């Protein structure tokens, strides 16, 4: 599979003790990041095809693996009112993940439905920009959607249909301590 070669090469390079321990020079660290990024993107196609096969879908499903979720940035969840999140569990045992996704609104409410139509409890918090501020990263999401997925089977997946509620119920306001000046 040609589209696996870049990741295979990246994993070969990452065996070096500098990559394992982080004792590489800065420009080498930058190159490691570059090589891994190419590897991940090259794997998008095969991942989509594998998931389509697992889902029994005739057409390859269009799925995005948001690489910036760890810094609260994802174009799919931030720009769409309705979106689907598919959670794939690569382990041979079940897991119960708690999903947190960046969203554009801080006041919106969302429903998370599994294919059986069961709604899972959700919560949107204001993303604490003052606490999770990352310099040089403009356009961080304003809100954060959290929901419980329940059990995701081993080597299996679970999908949720997320949609913004058009008429949200009044939400609880966060209780806030009077801030002190940190020293």
């Amino acid at each position: 599979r040609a589209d696996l070669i870049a990741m295979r090469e990246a994993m070969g390079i990452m065996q070096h003790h500098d990559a394992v321990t982080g004792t590489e020079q800065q420009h080498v660290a930058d190159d490691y990041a570059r090589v891994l990024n190419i590897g991940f993107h090259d794997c998008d196609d095969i991942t989509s095809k594998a998931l389509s096969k697992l889902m029994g879908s005739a057409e390859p499903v269009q799925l995005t693996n948001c690489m910036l979720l760890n810094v609260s940035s994802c174009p799919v969840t931030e720009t769409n009112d309705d979106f689907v999140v598919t959670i794939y569990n690569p382990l041979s045992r079940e897991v119960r993940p708690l999903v947190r996704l960046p969203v554009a609104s801080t006041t919106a409410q969302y429903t998370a439905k599994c294919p059986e139509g069961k709604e899972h409890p959700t919560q949107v918090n204001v993303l604490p920009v003052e606490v999770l501020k990352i310099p040089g990263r403009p356009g961080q999401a304003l809100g954060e959607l959290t929901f419980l997925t329940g059990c995701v089977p081993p080597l299996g997946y679970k999908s949720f249909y997320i949609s913004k509620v058009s008429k949200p119920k009044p939400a609880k306001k966060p209780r806030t301590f009077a801030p002190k000046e940190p020293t």
Partner: protein
Amino acid sequence: SLGYDGRYINLDANGLLESITIDGKTESVQMDCGFYKGAVGNNEVFGVHSNRSSGAYIFRPNGTLNLFAQNPSVTIVQGDVVSEVRYKYSDWISSILRIYRGAEPFHVEHEWLVGPIPIDDQGFGKEVVMRYHVKDLHNNGEFLTDSNGREMLKRRMNYRPTWDVDLDEKISGNYYPVTTRIAIEDGDNIWSVVTDRAQGGSSLRDGTMELMVHRRLTHDDAFGVGEALNETAFGKGLVVRGIHYIVPGSHADARKVVQNKVLHPWYFLSSSENIPFEDWR
């Protein structure tokens, strides 16, 4: 108190973590963050002087842990799914403590954000640690780390199993690699901290576990890398964001948290605008 179904994190009047309650049993737990100053200068090794600053290869603190003052600004958010306490210690260090409804096995999530570490103002590098203190747990200088990425290995302060050791550097000499978990135990009272990436860690004081989360240093350690550990992004010192999971309970519970969190599932996203739920089904 914040929590669900008999499991709570309890805060003091200033909003700091005071204890954790699980099914009626309360354990005093404290959380600190601080930094070690990175050593700068020469060192005599076997009569030979050479540069031995704290750097990429070696952790060499100059002095003991400098704790941040315990008066961060605090914001509390209570919700039906997750409740969180947000701490801002300074412009470059902040963290969030979270407790989720129905999290199995029970754990408390501590997300931290550190950086850019200032090094220009005082002229020395800093190595930032998060420290957790279970007050009534006496581990007597013993702790466990999964340094080899497989099983938990027992560590003892100022001790090596195969030779008599006399440590010159009491802090770094007792630091060990933590691949995913560090734990302390006192009989059946077992507490673990699960990391989302490999870090250095130790238990330098009774009942504590500390983990180094970020380092920014000003000098090369002369072990071969040829540059100071001073990473930048967007022209500023690197900002690091990560999570510790505080797990009270058995080693089996902690292992399950490792499986759930460290080897976490993959998320794939797609727009479903103009696709009704029934069609998507």
